[in-house]
């Protein structure tokens, strides 16, 4: 018994144990401080669905051997482009939402393919290159958002040039998934439970698709290529191609992820907004138990629950203890980057 606990501790690693304990203590504090637990639970559920797909995008990238996809802004920008085109086509509701996804996928495939070629050229330093590719593309597209010929008055500035910084989706497809099969139940002793069923179902469907893919023949090839490239070559698997497939999948999931995110958030955020989008996603999957080389779909679900749960609950807890400032922002930075640092110390090789 004692040994199995120690094994579990070793397997989890100190930072993860700290985060889990921290999460539990914050939950207990929230109850004791008399915060509305029903509202917090509802918020956590929404944020799991909102951020889940972006975290899921990490899985194919990690498994194909390119490491956590710090280049997620590339996929996000494709998703934003799809959304903008969908609005330009004057679509609303579900057609608008799905049109955004369908339009963004070809962009994401092309971008992901080129990006995969790039990552194959720089094996060993993918994370750094990915980060800076993502950063520079965000600014390149910032120029793009100014000069692109969009016409829809909801999106462009009434005076001057270019797209607005935030565009409301209120009239379009804000919360279409959240409201789908929405369950509103009043539970005595707890309060009002609102479950965004559509959002969660969509997230779990994508999880299942990725899970099934990883069990298919091509998924196994992808995993082998990432896990042991030499063995993969010996078994006749084209490592470079599989890395590209992983990157393309990750980029496509990133594009879908941001569309899911924006529909739940209700606003499209352009310009510098996608700059740091990769870091919370990377942190979430790492908190869930993934490493820079291994990841499961279960890590995504657990990780997004822990990380988003922590952030959602920490905010009101912190502000009820301390009225001034935004302590949860500092906490987010410490937790998010601390777990990434921890994962980096576990990266094998280099020397």
């Amino acid at each position: 018994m004692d040994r199995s606990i120690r094994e579990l501790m070793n397997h989890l690693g100190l930072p993860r144990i700290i985060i889990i304990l921290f999460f539990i203590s914050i939950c207990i504090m929230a109850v004791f401080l008399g915060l509305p637990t029903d509202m917090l639970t509802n918020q956590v559920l929404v944020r799991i669905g909102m951020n889940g797909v972006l975290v899921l995008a990490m899985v194919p990238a990690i498994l194909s051997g390119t490491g956590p996809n710090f280049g997620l802004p590339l996929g996000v920008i494709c998703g934003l482009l799809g959304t903008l085109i969908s609005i330009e086509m004057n679509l609303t509701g579900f057609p608008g939402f799905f049109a955004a996804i369908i339009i963004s996928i070809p962009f994401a495939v092309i971008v992901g393919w080129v990006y995969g070629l790039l990552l194959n050229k720089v094996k060993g330093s993918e994370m750094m290159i990915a980060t800076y590719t993502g950063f520079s593309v965000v600014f390149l597209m910032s120029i793009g958002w100014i000069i692109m010929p969009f016409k829809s008055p909801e999106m462009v500035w009434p005076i001057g040039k270019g797209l607005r910084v935030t565009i409301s989706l209120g009239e379009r497809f804000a919360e279409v998934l959240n409201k789908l099969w929405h369950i509103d139940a009043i539970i005595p002793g707890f309060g009002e439970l609102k479950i965004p069923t559509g959002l969660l179902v969509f997230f779990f469907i994508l999880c299942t698709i990725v899970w099934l893919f990883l069990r298919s023949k091509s998924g196994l090839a992808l995993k082998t290529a990432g896990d042991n490239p030499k063995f993969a070559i010996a078994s006749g698997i084209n490592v470079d191609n599989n890395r590209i497939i992983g990157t393309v999948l990750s980029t496509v999931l990133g594009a879908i992820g941001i569309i899911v995110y924006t529909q739940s958030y209700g606003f499209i955020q352009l310009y510098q907004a996608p700059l740091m989008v990769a870091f919370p996603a990377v942190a979430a999957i790492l908190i869930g138990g993934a490493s820079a080389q291994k990841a499961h779909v279960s890590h995504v679900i657990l990780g997004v629950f822990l990380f988003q749960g922590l952030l959602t609950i920490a905010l009101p807890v912190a502000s009820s203890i301390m009225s001034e400032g935004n302590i949860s922002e500092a906490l987010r930075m410490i937790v998010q980057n601390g777990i990434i640092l921890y994962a980096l110390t576990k990266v094998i090789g280099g020397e």
Partner: protein
Amino acid sequence: MANVNKLKNKINNNTNFGEKIKDVVMNNIVTIIFVVLCLIGIKLSGLPIFFVANELVTRISRNSFLVLALIIPVLAGMGLNFSIVVGAMAGQIAIIAVTHWGITGLPGFLLCAVIAFPFAVLFGYLTGKLLNKTKGQEMITSMIVGYFANGVYQLVFLFLVGTIIPMKNNVLMLSSGVGIRNTIDLSGGVKETGIKYALDQILKLPIFYVLIAFSILAILYNIFKLTNRRGIVNRREKQNKSKDSFKYIVNMSMFAILLILSIVIVAGNTPLKNIQLPVVTVIVIGVLCLFNILIVKTKLGQEFRTVGQDKHIAKVAGINVDRIRVLAIVISTVLAAWGQLIFLQNIGTLNTYGSHEQIGMFSIAALLIGGASVSKATVGQAILGTALFHTLFIVSPLAGKNLFGDAQIGEFFRAFVVYGVIGVSLGLHAWKNRAELKRKLKIE
């Protein structure tokens, strides 16, 4: 590595002059592109040359120290040290403390440097330890260290100051008594409250007069070196002699051009001659340049280089690789802390939660624009890079406005260039490394 270079040199000597020029161009392509970009930018912005030059002198003296702080980790093979952000935080901790105590001017500045030192050593030590655990991924780690430290810094200065750390100061702290204000004025209106211009104001001279004096001295030094080489009998040095003489003559003629240019500007009575140079700041920067050059000649510097070239060989040669790497980061962090002090004494306002954030990236972009790479960086590249980078910074908003009718485009372009140049040089470096590795494997 050294052998490869020798071989390369031999090959280069055998090929004709045209090839050589092509080689030089290809090796410095980044710098050349940026020189062209800067020239186009200056032309497009339509800014008066006096304004650009004046601004540039200020910015070079403000930022060079930080850029120079990056060189030693590159030497030690740890790549570009993004964690100079942590050093900058150490500098800011010192500034907050000294401003709180009300010590201003030069004494305040020197006290800042003293207080920042132990903090920077500690932070550098911890960062170095961490980087030893992540060999091969130093750059991404140092970048994340910066973000992580930023979180801790915010936690300390927003929530712990006034609660756990006792401090009372109505000017510096938020009205609730917990946390430091967003901006701290280092100069203050009538009464001096901070360290603004502590270093810059000691001595200011018109830059072109300084340049005239400097180039005369440099020419004299070169003549002295040239004439003093007559008595050499050592055979090997004799071989190098003609090459060295050539170098001295080239140096001399370059300084002569500088001298003539400066005299023309001073004599021509252009507004340019009124540009002031903060002499002491420049001397401090010069001292750091010398430090970076001279350290290579010491035992420690050689150890840095050995570790940088091959960790295994260094280990076999009896060098404590991990210790050397930690030392490189500690030195870099301390220099960054002082660099941030120089930066802030010129700016005059401390943006408590923002001044340090961009430091790492901007300094690294400047160094890379100067032609440095992940594995090689010199003092000259640092200074040249700073100049080019800041020229682009000064002109791009106006250039963007004049070209596209929108200043924002210029700003975005500038940011794109900053991130892009880092991405591209990292990519090229990784790609070259892989190509070399493949070639090695094939030979074996």
